[in-house]
């Protein structure tokens, strides 16, 4: 295929810099899926540079990328290799050549504001039994729930727990209710730039009208795009950052005990991409009774759960070699009884993996908010 990928990427607002690449292979070497699928981002960067990419149409592995951005973080030359994948995906999107499940997710977001395709008016079903103030009435903190946090049954439990914790801390927070719409973080990474632009155009005024001092998100993915791509006029925090702050200020008192051995999985969009490694650990360590243990691959070397970049809606070209399978085994090997997560995608991928690997009787995947709520 002969076209100027660099130019195309620029038009999409991507920072891809093909010309500074020295083909060192650090991107592919660190790519979590490079050992289990045909995806080779170094080779794609080279092909894009010299204008020799055999039609990406035939490259199903382009959809394997989880957009963990390990390649972007480690690239010595600031090439931003993952963005060549996003640029190539966008070409496929323009041609309508996307895997059907991804097409459905994008359609769901376009029609109902969520990739699961559930009805917009059901977005607040998780609030049943909880009183959550409408943000439109004005609030200091805007709570933004990821589509998964709002609709996915397992993730809903974490969302409810977070609300209980924030209430216990006496926080003034509100929620947009059924007006809340998908942030589009994965939409952009799937290369559906038109839809992403629409989400920003409609979402940004809605979020800013609330007049909140800050936004707290349940998902690192939402936090990431709100921080870096929406450029909102308010602070955007992940909920673990907010909880760490509340604990430090003595506004959140934990009187209960959780007598468990707990380990923690760093979400890529929280850790690698935004450098938030310490706060989730501080929160876990502040829970009375918790014995905190670490896995080997943590922080900047954490293993991706494989749920980002649209992979929640695409099985990938190799379902045998799921990274989440490996990850839950690593967690179980530490002797932990609980694998704490801080992202609804990680929750879904890892929770599922404990079942597949027959580990669910000895390793429970729980959100940090759930563990904090247990100690209230």
């Amino acid at each position, binding site marked *: 295929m002969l076209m100027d990928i660099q130019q195309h990427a620029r038009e999409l607002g991507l920072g891809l810099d093909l010309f500074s690449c*020295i*083909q*060192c*292979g*650090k*991107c*592919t*070497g*660190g*790519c979590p899926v*490079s*050992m289990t699928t045909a995806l*080779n981002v*170094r*080779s794609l960067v080279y092909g894009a540079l010299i204008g020799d990419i055999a039609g990406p149409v035939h490259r199903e592995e382009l959809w394997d990328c989880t957009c963990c951005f*390990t390649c972007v973080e*480690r690239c*010595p*030359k*600031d090439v931003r290799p993952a963005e060549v994948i996003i640029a190539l995906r966008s070409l496929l999107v323009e041609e309508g050549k996307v895997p059907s499940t991804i097409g459905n997710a994008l359609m769901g977001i376009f029609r109902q504001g969520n990739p699961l395709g559930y009805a917009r008016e059901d977005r607040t079903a998780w609030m049943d039994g909880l009183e959550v103030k409408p943000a439109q009435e004005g609030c200091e903190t805007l709570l933004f729930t990821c589509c998964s946090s709002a609709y996915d049954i397992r993730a809903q439990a974490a969302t409810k727990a977070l609300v209980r914790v924030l209430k216990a801390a006496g926080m003034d927070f509100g929620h947009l209710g059924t007006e809340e719409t998908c942030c589009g973080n994965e939409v952009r990474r799937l290369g559906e730039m038109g839809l992403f632009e629409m989400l920003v155009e409609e979402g940004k005024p809605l979020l800013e009208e609330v007049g909140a001092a800050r936004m707290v998100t349940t998902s690192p993915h939402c936090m990431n795009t709100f921080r870096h791509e929406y450029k909102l006029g308010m602070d955007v925090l992940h909920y673990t950052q907010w909880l760490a702050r509340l604990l430090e200020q003595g506004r959140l008192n934990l009187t209960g005990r959780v007598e468990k051995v707990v380990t923690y999985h760093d979400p890529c969009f929280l850790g690698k991409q935004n450098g938030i490694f310490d706060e989730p650990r501080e929160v876990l360590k502040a829970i009375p009774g918790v014995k905190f243990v670490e896995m*080997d*691959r943590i*922080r*900047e*070397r954490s293993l991706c759960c494989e749920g980002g970049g649209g992979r929640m809606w695409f099985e990938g070209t190799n379902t045998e070699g799921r990274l989440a399978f490996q990850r839950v085994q690593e967690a179980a090997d530490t002797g932990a009884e609980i694998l704490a997560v801080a992202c609804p995608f990680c929750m879904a991928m890892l929770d599922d993996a404990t079942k597949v690997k027959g580990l669910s009787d000895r390793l429970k995947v729980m959100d940090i908010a759930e563990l904090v709520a247990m100690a209230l």
Partner: protein
Amino acid sequence: MTHKPAALVIGAGIAGIQAALDIADAGFPVYLVEREPSVGGRMAQLDKTFPTLDCSSCILTPKMVNVGQHPNIELMTYSEVVAVEGEAGAFHVTIRKKPRYVEEDLCRGCGLCAQECRMHGRVVDTFNQGLGKRAAIYVPFPQAVPLIYTVDPTACLYLTRGVCGKTFKCKDACPTGAINFEQKERFVEVDVAAIIVATGFDLMDPRTKPEFGYGVYPNVITGLEFERLSSASGPTGGKIVLNGKEPQDMVFIHCVGSRDPHTGVPYCSRICCMYTAKHAHLVRDKLPNARITVFYIDMRAFGKGYEEFYDRVKEERVFYRRGEPSEVYRRGDRLVVRGEDSLLGRTVEVEADLVVLATAVVPRADTLAVAELLGLACSPDGFFQEAHPKYRPVESTRPGVFLAGCCQGPKDIPDAVAQAKAAAASALVVLKNTAQDLPQRHEDTKKKL
């Protein structure tokens, strides 16, 4: 000393030593100032040198002894330049002599003090890159010049806590009464006509690249740590062992921090390709059955005899694999190096018992302070700036001040020595002209008076 104009050489690594010797041999007096207790610098830490495999200490020690004994060199170790005034031909320099707490003219270097020191075997040995332990009173290495013990003020119990048991064990052990805790720092002022700056380099802290697990895994080490591990004068007596075990699988990683604007090191460190080839050779020499893998991005074997050395090392069953590894992690009791072999176009996991990181050469941490002290400019890479990249490569931006060795940019020993000799030659021009001007200057001064 004679009445001839003198030169000041700052830093007594191989570049400073060579520059001082050349000027002294030409008959001019030299003050050679070194902030460590001994001369020798980085080269003293190395095991062998590439590509000839000369023992580093063996070819350095005679030069060290020479600067210690040369009638035209006044050696000032454990000292730092603190002020420089004046101009080419007439600099006035203030040097701070740090207290060793040992009388230089009394110490015979016998080492009984160190054996008796309560901190013996408990102080991190910086000369051995932290791989060994020493006492609070020490010489950095046995061939130190001068062979005079020094009390480490950061480790000595008396100096840090004000008390060291009922009696000073070091003092009791010293047969010459050389130890003196009353010693204070002294300031010495000297007049010199020319200055050579040879302050050397630092190595990047590999923790800036957390993906390699340095600081997490004890068997991930730096190239300089490997030098100490391999050196006969090192903590293992030259045996490549870690925690009592000989590694069977060794992985060397090039370009850790170099060629990487993210870490502030956009340049190539120039020495790593060759010293890693040398390391691979040393491993093969000592561990004939070890599996040795070197990961590289581009192989740069540019010097005389270098490509030939690279060929030789490959012949010695060393696997060169193209690709910069991305991550090191643990599997069982072994390490796994994960990276793409870009020639295979495939990501590979290579198991290792020892991983050696070729960390970037970076400017000394206090380069900016030294630049300010001496009135020098730094180039964008942070090293001292030469006056012209082609025609004035050893002159600094300040007349009368010359650059030698790695303080101007990364270079290997032959280049450092060549630059030192060039700096000495340039300084000699100033010294010679100053000597000719001296009678005239004397007249001028008289007229002013």
